[in-house]
C-alpha cells in the first residue's frame, strides 16, 4: 500500500478567495497540513489577509490574527510571550507574510524577532511582488521582471536590481533553521516545516509561491513553473541548519534559464543579452550555493 507523505488532514476548507492557480493558496494549505491544528497564525497585509474570506466567514481551521503590514515579527513574539506567560508550550506560533511584508516593510520587525530569539516560525510566501495591491515591484522581485511599477514601455524600465536574498539575511542572524521550499515540491516543504516545528528558537521558511496573475502566466502553469525554477536553479531549494547548508535538490545538469522565463509573460520583453546576463548570474549563484554547502559541511567534519 502506498505510503502518504503528505498528511490527508485538511485545515484549509473550500472557500478561499484567491485567484486561479494561486501558489500562495498551496503554501497555506501545505503549511497547515505540516504544522497541524495546534498552530496560531499571524497574517499581515498580503493576499492572505483577504483570502481566508470576508467576515464572518473564514476558510482556515486554526486561530488567526490579522496584523498591520510591517509587524508580523513583533506579532509572533507577542503571541509566543503570552503563551509562555500562560504556561502553554504545545502550540506552534507562525507568521505568514508575503515578500513585500517580509523583505521590505516588515524586515525590521522580522530582524527583531530573529535577534531576540522568539520561538516561532516566520513564513514568507514569495510571489515576488506586491500582488494583493496589484503587481507592484518589491525587493523580492527578480531582475528583469515587468511589474506595474517597473513598466516596460519606451524607457525599458523593467526591474534592474537583483532580488533581495532574504535567506542570506536570516542566516546572518545566526538563527537555528532557515529553508527555501516550493509549492511544487510539497513533500519537501512539509518535511522542512515539520523540522522547523521541532526546533526551539526563531525559524525562517521561504516558500516559492507562483502568482499566475502577476507573472502573466496561465493558471495551469503554477506547478510547471515551480519545477522549472528548481531545474534551472532560478530558485534553488536548500536549508541552513545552524549555519550548515544542504541543497535539497541538485539537478545533474541545469536547464537554461530561458526555459523558466519563456512560460511567464513578465520576462517576455527581455532582449537576448539580458537573458544571457541573467543566466550568468544564475550560474554564479548556483556555484556559490554548491560551494557554501561544501564549505560549511567541511567545517562540521573538520
Amino acid at each position, binding site marked *: 500500500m502506498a505510503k502518504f507523505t503528505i498528511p490527508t488532514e485538511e485545515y484549509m476548507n473550500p472557500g478561499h478567495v484567491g485567484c486561479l492557480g494561486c501558489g500562495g493558496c498551496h503554501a497555506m494549505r501545505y503549511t497547515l497540513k505540516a504544522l497541524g*491544528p*495546534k*498552530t*496560531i497564525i*499571524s497574517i499581515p497585509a498580503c493576499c492572505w*489577509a*483577504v483570502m*481566508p*474570506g*470576508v*467576515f464572518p466567514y*473564514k476558510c*482556515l*481551521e*486554526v*486561530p*488567526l*490574527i*490579522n*496584523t*498591520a503590514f*510591517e*509587524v508580523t*515579527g*513583533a*506579532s*509572533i*513574539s*507577542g*503571541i509566543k*510571550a*503570552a*503563551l*509562555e*506567560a*500562560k504556561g502553554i508550550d504545545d*502550540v506552534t506560533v507562525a507568521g505568514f507574510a508575503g515578500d513585500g511584508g517580509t523583505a521590505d516593510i516588515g524586515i*525590521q*520587525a522580522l*530582524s*527583531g524577532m530573529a*535577534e*531576540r530569539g522568539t520561538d516561532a516560525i516566520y513564513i514568507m510566501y514569495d510571489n515576488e511582488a506586491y500582488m494583493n495591491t496589484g503587481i507592484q515591484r518589491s525587493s523580492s522581485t527578480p531582475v528583469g521582471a515587468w511589474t506595474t511599477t517597473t513598466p516596460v514601455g519606451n524607457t525599458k524600465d523593467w526591474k534592474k536590481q537583483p532580488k533581495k536574498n532574504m535567506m542570506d539575511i536570516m542566516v546572518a542572524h545566526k538563527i537555528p533553521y532557515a529553508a527555501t521550499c516550493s509549492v511544487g515540491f510539497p513533500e519537501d516543504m512539509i518535511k522542512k516545516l515539520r523540522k522547523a516545528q521541532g526546533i526551539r528558537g526563531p525559524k525562517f521558511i521561504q516558500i516559492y509561491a507562483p502568482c499566475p496573475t502577476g507573472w502573466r502566466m496561465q493558471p495551469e502553469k503554477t506547478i510547471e513553473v515551480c519545477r522549472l525554477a528548481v531545474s534551472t536553479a532560478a530558485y534553488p531549494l536548500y536549508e541552513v541548519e545552524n549555519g550548515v547548508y544542504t541543497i535539497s535538490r541538485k539537478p545533474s545538469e541545469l536547464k537554461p534559464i530561458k526555459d523558466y522565463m519563456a512560460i511567464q509573460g513578465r520576462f517576455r520583453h527581455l532582449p537576448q543579452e539580458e537573458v544571457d546576463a541573467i543566466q550568468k548570474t544564475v550560474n554564479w549563484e548556483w556555484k556559490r550555493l554548491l560551494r557554501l554547502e561544501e564549505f560549511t559541511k567541511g567545517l562540521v567534519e573538520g
Partner: protein
Amino acid sequence: MKMVMTGNYASAYGAKVCRAEVISAYPITPQTSIVEKIATLCSSGEMKAKFVKVESEHSAMAALISASMTGARTYTATSSHGLLLMHELLIWAAGARTPVVMSNVCRANGPPWSVWADHHDAIAQRDTGWMQVFCEGNQEVLDSIIMAYKLGEREDIRLPSIINEDAFILSHTVEPVDVPEMEDVDSFLPPFNPRFRLDVNEPYGFGSLVMPDMYMEFRYKINEAMEAARQGWRDVEKDFERHFGRSHGGLVEFYKCEGADAILIMAGSIASTAKDVVDDLRAKGKKVGLARIRVFRPFPVEEIRKLAGMANTMGMCDHSYTFGHWGPMGQEVRGALYDMNDRPLLMNYIVGLGGKDMTPGVIEKIYLKTLALKGGLDHDIEWIGVKGHGGW
C-alpha cells in the same frame, strides 16, 4: 507600603501590582527608567512578566496587541516620538479591542529636539480610540494604571488606556507613593480572562476583512464602549476609593470653584502649582478656582457643563496646540459649553510647550488676565510667554 519614588517608578510598580503578564517596550528619554525598573523587577523575580525587548515602539505595540489577543494582561511605556511611531498600532489596538495599558511620559515633539514636557504627543493620539488620563502626581500615576485595567478589561468596554505623566516634572521627581500590596490589588482587579482569544481549542479569526455594511458596526461599537466608559471611570474611581481609601477627583477635579469669578481649566502636573496659586489669590480676596481635566478620553462633557454658571470668565490652559485653530482642549471645552445658556467667556491659553516653565507667577498673571476678561473678546487664544509678541 509607603515609598518615595519618581513617577516613572510609580508606573513600573503600577504594572507590577497589576501582575502585567507581557511587557514590551523600547527605551526613550524620559521614559527609560520605567523599562529599566521593570527589567530589574523581572530579573529579581519580583515580577513574573515576560518582557519582550523589541527593536522599536511600533513593534512594542504590535507585540502587545497580539499578546493581549492571546489572553495576557499587557503593559508598555513610551514618550513623544515613540508614541507617534506607534500611532498606526494605537488605532489597531482599539480596533482589536485589546485593553493594553500604556504609560506615556508626555514630552514635546521635534524638531527642534526637546525632551521636556508638553502634551502634544498624547493629544495627537486623541482619535485613536484609547482612553486617556492626565495625572497630577505620582500616586495618581500608579492608581490610574490599576483603574485602567479594571475598566478597560470590562467585557462591555475592552478599550486600551494611556496614562499620561509629565516629563521630568513627574517622571523624574520623587514623591511619597503608597504602593498597595499585590494581594490587595488582586481582590480589586481579577485576572484578565477575555471570552474571545487566540486559542487552538476555539479557532477564531480576528480582524478579517469586512464589507462596508459591517465596518461601521464595528466602529459604532467602539464608540458605544467609549461612551459607556465615561460612567465607567466614575464608577471605577468610586470602587477604587472604597477599596483603597483614596480618590483623584473623578473625570474632572474641581478645586475651589464654588463662588468663583474666574476658573482656569487645565490638565496634568501644572494643576498642582495652580492649586497653590488659587490658595494665594483666594487669600488676597480674588475669587478664583481650578478645574483639572483628569480623564480626557472619554471627554467629560457633563462635568465640563457643570462649569457653566459657576463663573463668568474662564481660561483653558492647553499644554499643546493645533496649528490653525485653538488648542485641542480649548476646542472641546468650548464645544461642550456651546449648548449651555449661561456659558462663560472663554479664553484659550497655549502654555508651557517644550517645558517652558509654568511658575506660580505666570499662572497668577493668567488668573488676573482671566478675571479681567470682558464681553466682546477681540481674540480668543493667546500663546503665553512667546517672545516678541507682547509676551510676558
